[in-house]
């Protein structure tokens, strides 16, 4: 029996791995592929959970804030109505962030700009 059957060289192992992963035998390394599949990007149930939590908490915080303002200034119910609406807007904004995969830092515009810059970097890195 030839020796190569028992101890495949590193090249052969790589080729076999590529075959198992369903990739063409020779090509770009596949390392960038699983970058998006880390725990940072939840799917299905996790995503739905995050969105619902964001919506509920922002509206609740808005409502609580308005309630507090009303108590403080005696302007019931106007501050609460206003803050509930703003809380709803904030909830939609946060849900939008979750769906778009933007980061959670303050400032929606900045988050979008950062994501775009990141994607530009990525595509540049892949082509160059």
């Amino acid at each position, binding site marked *: 029996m030839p020796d190569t059957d028992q101890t495949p060289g590193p090249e052969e192992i790589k080729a076999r791995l590529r075959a198992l992963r369903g990739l063409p035998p020779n090509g770009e390394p596949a390392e960038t592929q699983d970058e998006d599949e880390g*725990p*940072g990007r*939840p799917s299905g149930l*996790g995503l739905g*959970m*995050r969105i619902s*939590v*964001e919506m*509920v*908490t*922002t509206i*609740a*915080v*808005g409502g609580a*804030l308005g309630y507090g303002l009303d108590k403080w200034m005696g302007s019931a119910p106007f501050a609460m109505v206003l*803050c509930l609406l*703003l*809380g709803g*807007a*904030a909830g939609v*904004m*946060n849900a939008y962030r979750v769906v778009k995969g933007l*980061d*959670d*830092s*303050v*400032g*929606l*515009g*900045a988050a979008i700009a*950062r994501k775009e810059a990141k994607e530009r970097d990525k595509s540049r890195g892949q082509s160059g």
Partner: protein
Amino acid sequence: MASPVEQFRIQELVPLKLSENIDISLTNSALMMVIGVFVALLFFWIATARRTVVPGRLQSCAEILYEFIANMIRDNVGKEGMRYFPYVFTLFVFVFLGNFIGMVPYSFTYTSHIVVTGALALTVFAVVTVIGFARHGAGYLRMFFPKGAPIATAPILIPIELISYLSRPFSLAVRLFANMTVGHIMLKVLAGFVVSLGALGAASWGLGYLGAFAAFSMVAGITVLEFFIAALQAYVFTILTCIYLNDAINMH
């Protein structure tokens, strides 16, 4: 069938009432926290007892954990963030152990109580806010109004960003609490099906056994899923802390 929320009941183990309103009794939740802290202490103590250049098994684990959190901070906050490494690391270990101790049968999941996760999240919020104001002074408030946006949008944008900022500790707390609670309730309900369907087994020409088996396989599957979620939620809690720290330190 026992109530599925029975497992979350707080039981006093050592009653300790300082006064009418101050009750610092040792409860099962507190006991689990103490156990968690001791497990962490013991692990890192043993793992770093013999500090070798070529690490042994335990030391490797400790080093991997260190590198994991250190990289998380470096990636999300940058070098400056390493100052807060001890806090982030402690937070991760505490939440992680809380979730995993909860997976041990007959134990108690302290992260399944919103008062615990809420306290952790509010601490994160307070720490981040204090760091932000300490580093940038009143300039920290500038962050709520995006650069380049027309000034007329300020009355809408600022309150929205403010509410979004204020809701952070709540979403952080609710996410961890809800995930842990839901998972444990689901396990309990399905495990209850195993018992009640199994009891019906002989009377229903074996159909009950079939149902019990199906429920049991679900329990087995969900248990694995719960382990995954336990790790994932600890990770999510920590990485969000890092992202919030990044806001306070770098203030884009």
